[in-house]
């Protein structure tokens, strides 16, 4: 069951939560809505579910070519998992999971024995068979969320919608549950959309990631695409760590830090300031000039406890940088705090135009792919 929404807008009073959002989720896909709080991701999920109504004038909400925009949440057959579980506190685990089946009109209600079997199977699926007669407040957070998932799956939903499903859990449980959910999805293949503000969660779990900011979709792509080829400045800064430079393009050359890059991509542009972004692992660090364009920097601190060494550098031009390089390379070079190093970027992202006022289309990134290192 695919999901498609077109031109969805939503305002709460004077606050614009969503602005002309369009999105397609293919059958069997696991898609993440990723963004900071207030980006509209939860609102979009609730609109897909039918828990919230889009503004009049919004486009259709299609479940497999069928417009469900006018249907209530109950008629859409969605499985919805809430951030705070929303388990029925006065019912046992078993009663919670069976709820969706028991409230059906008599003609559509499965017989009792069948309900019991299905609940039993679902509890097996979420590994909680032995907890059937417990109450929600006797379970841990991770167990509660698994009950909520089983409850949502009990009605055999066409799509599964999860609102920050791991948001209320502690880091370790969150990580375990994340991998467990991925395995579960691979097993049952129900079209799923989940909301998160945790980029690791989105990048690790999802087939595709929808990055949102201020009620707009900034980019839709595979985790690899959004991480390595961010379409907008927001996506660049939101995903992963990034170093920022004020730069300038002038007659086909790009100037930042104390570097001058050949930049034929910008040859046509009038002379103007630009913003340059480099990820920590996209720097090469050497103790002497190696022929690649580089700038000088001083090592301030070194964190070497981990698979990569993280260096904090102070560039000659005054910027503070964070650089990551493999531990063995760092060791081989004998870098210590206080040493002078030469830093050469391998891959940079350049954005022109105004930071936020300009529509996304105008701030076009220009890829500078890795150049051969000597």
């Amino acid at each position: 069951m695919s999901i498609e929404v077109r031109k969805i807008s939503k305002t709460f009073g004077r606050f614009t939560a969503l602005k002309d959002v369009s999105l397609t989720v293919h059958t069997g896909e696991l898609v993440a809505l990723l963004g900071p709080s207030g980006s509209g991701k939860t609102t979009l999920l609730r609109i897909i579910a039918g828990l919230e109504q889009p503004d009049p004038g919004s486009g259709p909400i299609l479940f497999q070519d069928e417009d469900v925009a006018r249907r209530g949440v109950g008629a859409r057959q969605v499985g919805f998992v809430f951030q705070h579980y929303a388990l029925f506190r006065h019912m046992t685990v078993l009663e919670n999971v069976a709820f969706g089946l028991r409230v059906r009109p008599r003609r559509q209600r499965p017989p009792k024995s069948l309900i019991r079997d299905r609940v039993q199977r679902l509890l097996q699926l979420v590994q909680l068979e032995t907890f059937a007669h417990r109450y929600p407040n006797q379970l841990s957070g991770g167990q509660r969320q698994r009950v909520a998932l089983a409850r949502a799956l009990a009605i055999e939903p066409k799509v599964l919608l999860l609102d920050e499903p791991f948001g209320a859990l502690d880091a370790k449980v969150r990580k375990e549950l994340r991998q467990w959910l991925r395995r579960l999805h691979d097993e049952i293949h129900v079209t799923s959309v989940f909301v998160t503000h945790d980029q690791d969660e989105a990048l690790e779990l999802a087939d595709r990631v929808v990055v949102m900011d201020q009620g707009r979709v900034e980019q839709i792509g595979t985790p690899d695409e959004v991480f390595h080829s961010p379409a907008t400045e927001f996506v660049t800064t939101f995903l992963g760590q990034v170093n920022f430079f004020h730069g300038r393009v002038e007659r086909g050359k790009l100037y930042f830090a104390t570097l001058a890059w050949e930049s034929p991509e910008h040859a046509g542009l009038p002379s103007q300031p630009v913003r340059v972004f480099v990820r920590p692992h996209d720097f090469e660090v050497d103790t002497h000039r190696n022929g690649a364009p580089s700038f000088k920097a001083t090592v301030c601190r070194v964190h070497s406890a981990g698979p990569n060494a993280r260096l904090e550098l102070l560039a000659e031009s005054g910027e503070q940088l964070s650089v990551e390089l493999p531990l063995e390379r760092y060791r081989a070079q004998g870098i210590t705090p206080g040493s002078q190093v030469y830093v050469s970027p391998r891959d940079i992202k350049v954005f022109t135009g105004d930071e936020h006022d300009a529509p996304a289309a105008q701030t076009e990134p220009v890829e500078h792919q890795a150049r051969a290192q000597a």
Partner: protein
Amino acid sequence: MSEAVLIPTTPMARPRSDAAISEPAVVRWALVAVAMLFLGLFLVLPLVAVFVQALEKGVGLYLKSLVDRDALAAVRLTLLTALVVVPLNTVFGVAAAWAIAKFEFTGKQVLTTLVDLPFSISPVIAGLVFVLLFGRDGWLGPWLEARDLKVLFAVPGIVLATLFVTFPFVARELIPLMQAQGAEEEEAARALGAGGWQTFRRVTLPNVKWGLLYGVILCNGRAMGEFGAVSVVSGHIRGQTNTMPLHVEILYNEYNLVAAFAVASLLAMLALVTLVLKSVLQWKVARQLALAADGPAGGRKP
């Protein structure tokens, strides 16, 4: 107990026994003694006095005062009033609380304030309002008279006045409970295909049942004991429009002390039963609130 009950989410509200932050034993005992003395003087003693007075001339006369025709009529009227008022106010209260706690709508603030109105004005004024409305010279008086309907100085007036005075009890009890529980469980129920009524009956109602019962008990206590508003609209017709509190006053004014205190003792017993039920329910409500805090429903997005 009630302090801990009202703010169950704040662990600070729990009494601490750490010596470091505790007062010296003398101070503690003195405080307890003062509180006990006050309670004894102003609450227990009067209560005892009611029963002592009622039984002063022996059990026989006590029972005789209770089975007196007018006394029985007063008891009957009081029970009838409560029987009509309590269910109605339960329904109104649940509806108002549900609307206020679970939905956003224009005029919500006004409704919240209006729910408290009967508490904030004197019951006598409440009674007078009904006189103004239904009295011979009132707005609806002539219309009612033309159709030979008696509201004022009759049972309907008493029921209306009591209805008005006891309206807030159920709603006031439910609103904070429902607000603490949020609307997420209802949303979950709707998403699972439950209809509005199913959601209410299977999710909302069980979640607030103890709070609801508590409100009903309080509402009932007040409905049976209300004096001011009922006094204005009743007309004090013996055997017809006298409720128990009004009957007590009449007997008292006639210096029939034994009979007055005998009927009063019934009301006092009702109060005691209400108090015990209230304590039990308060404990249950505190647990329900604690559960609500345990699994916070989380605020909705703006």
